[in-house]
């Protein structure tokens, strides 16, 4: 959680995205230029930041580092129900769980499905969120309020409730969608792609409000004169978005994208509820549900942990790549 915020801050201070922030920036520069060595008598002062950080570090350590450490540890052992309840001794497997995982064709299939599905979700969510954010700036107060409320309602709905409602909307026997489209008793969850599509709709529905609200706030802080200048130069809406707004909002968009990637890669509830735990013959499994099925449904905790570690590494890699990209772009600016 700390990384994106820091990045957002750094980016913001470099790009003149926010008019309100520029004043602070000027102030801080003056402050930074002020006597540095004076503030560095060694010893106590060096510890002071750590003292302030300590509570947060303790909480993070307890809630994040320790579980991750346990996850990694368990993934190196043979650890099923029999081991947990003491029926059999726990044995060290080295990378045994990982090699079992990597030699399972289903794992690769699920991984591929997860990556493609998450990518589709991220792209759709960003497209819908950004489009509606731009729309928000163009409409009058009442429709804006209505759109905001609708979006916040979707955002506030618990994932299980949302999934159940969407499932009902597309129900073959009672759902209004089939009746409207005249599809008879067509089942949306039977085909692999139509089931994924249905889940995608729900995921986009419940995660676009975050993108919309964040981007809307970003657009609001873009100085009006810049947009006016672009309009005077005869730029079209699309051109303004591409050449003016998007570059100015880049830090925000990066944060939003990373968040979306993380969320959509980890999607669990929607798949679990809407496809009944992974779909017909497991065709709609994604990594998180797959890990759950291995770890908890089949009590193979160690194998489930190995999947968890693989997911963690993938997400870390994605985040790091984005951070690098951002920093490079920042230096160029």
């Amino acid at each position, binding site marked *: 959680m700390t990384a994106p915020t820091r990045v957002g801050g750094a980016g913001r201070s470099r790009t003149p995205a926010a008019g309100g922030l520029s004043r602070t920036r000027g102030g801080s520069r003056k402050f930074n230029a002020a006597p540095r060595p004076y503030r560095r008598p060694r010893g106590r002062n060096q510890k002071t930041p750590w003292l302030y950080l300590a509570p947060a570090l303790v909480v993070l350590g307890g809630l994040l580092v320790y579980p991750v450490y346990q996850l990694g540890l368990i993934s190196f052992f043979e650890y099923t129900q029999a081991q947990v309840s003491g029926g059999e001794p726990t044995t060290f497997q080295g990378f045994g769980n990982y090699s079992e995982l990597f030699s399972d064709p289903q794992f690769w299939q699920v991984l591929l499905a997860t990556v493609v599905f998450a990518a589709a979700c991220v792209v759709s969510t960003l497209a819908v969120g950004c489009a509606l954010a731009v729309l928000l700036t163009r409409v009058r107060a009442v429709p804006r309020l209505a759109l905001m409320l609708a979006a916040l309602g979707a955002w506030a709905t618990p994932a299980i409730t949302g999934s159940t409602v969407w499932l009902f909307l597309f129900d073959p026997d009672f759902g209004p969608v089939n009746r409207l489209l005249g599809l008879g008793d067509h089942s949306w969850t039977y085909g692999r792609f139509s089931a994924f599509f249905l889940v995608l709709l729900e995921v986009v529905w419940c995660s676009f409000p975050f993108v919309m609200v964040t981007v809307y706030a970003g657009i609001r802080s873009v100085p009006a004169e810049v947009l006016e200048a672009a309009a005077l130069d005869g730029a079209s809406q699309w051109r303004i978005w591409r050449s003016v707004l998007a570059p100015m909002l880049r830090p925000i968009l990066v944060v939003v994208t990373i968040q979306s990637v993380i969320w959509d890669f980890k999607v669990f509830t929607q798949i679990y509820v809407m496809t009944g735990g992974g779909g017909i013959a497991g065709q709609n499994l994604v990594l998180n549900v797959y890990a759950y099925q291995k770890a908890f449904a089949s*009590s193979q905790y160690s194998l489930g942990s190995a999947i968890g570690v693989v997911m963690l590494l993938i997400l870390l890699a994605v985040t790091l790549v984005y951070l690098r990209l951002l920093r490079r772009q920042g230096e160029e600016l």
Partner: protein
Amino acid sequence: MKLAPRLAVLLTALAVTACAPQTSDNSSSDKDEKTGTLRVWLFQEVGNQPKEKVVDAVVADFEKEHEGAKVDVEYIPVETRAQRVKAAFNDPKSAPDVIEYGNTDTAGYVKDGGLLDVTKEFGDWSEAKDTDPTAAQSVTVDGKIYGAPFYVGVRALYYRTDIFEQLGLEVPKTMAELATTARKIRAAEPELYGLVVGGAYTYGAMPFVWANGGELATGKGGSYASAIDSEAAQKGIKAYTSLFSDDNCPAAKCAGMGGNDTVTAFAAGKAGMAIGGDFSHAAVEAGKVKGKYAVVPLPGVKAGSVAPAFAGGNNIGVLKSTSHRTLAVQLMEQLASKETQASMFDAMGFLPTFGDVREKAAAEKPYVKPFVQTLSSGTKFVPASPAWSGIDSSLVLPTMFQEVISGKKDVAGASGDAAKKMDEAFGSAG
């Protein structure tokens, strides 16, 4: 940069101090206290009151007989039983002394180290000799006995008498007739499923495999090999999966169904026939079709034969961690006694596991007859291997059926893959 070495030191320290994940000590406690509280977990059924009444009577008698002993009964929801029992095994201190458990879980629980070996006590028990062999098999692992059978459940064919009469249909006598009758119903009444089937309804599908001479697995005493890809088994799989067609039960709707879904559909009047258990009787009676249905044993391949049914049911067992060994075993025997099972049948309709008690029950309540007939014409049980719980919960068989139904794989391919997965599970569970 100073952080990195410190972090490394910290991590090494952690790794050294805790080099294995936690394991609970579930060795049998040597204590055998004769007083104190016995904790019992039984399953919470739909409409649980009658069950509670029977249990309360048993408990009252037990407490009268054993001075200083108290019994604390808790009813746990069936859906979350797996987590509850796992938690009990993980934390012996807060675990109950006596539990009710599904008979397919026996071998798995034994491997987890949770159940107490009661071979000697069961042998000494005067009523044990009347236990029917299938029920006895369901508490036996490697020749040792880990509990007392509580009731058995078998499935048979429910059909709509009004629709059969209206269409002039005969009750099917063979499996082939079953399929043609089902299609006739659907053809005449397109809004009904002929025979409602489910892709995730393993125990409704297995009779088709068994009737065709197939087996889940062959072997004995711990070492099993899957036989689900044998020629006979494949024939059965084909027979079952061919029922998922637009002229009986459309794959798009039926592939995802489980046993409860099919019974619900039948009870709601949406199907001409269904494969349901004696335990489904109450649910069907409460549905729209009350008074308009009858039950017969599921027909086998040859006319007049009965397809072997899966002998489901529950057992009562004692946990290894109990500190009241003698008392707990006695309570187990009383909860599973002939007398209790007879009153439990009256109260809940659970089929007794004792041959003589069951015959009496069938004489009293005619609806039980087809189920008793199914039981007496031979039933099958899942392999008594600790791997079975894993095979069951990782959905190996539903996946196989669904792969065939949805056309992802042919019967040979899907059953071959399922056999491979089962063999892996059997192998790793040793």
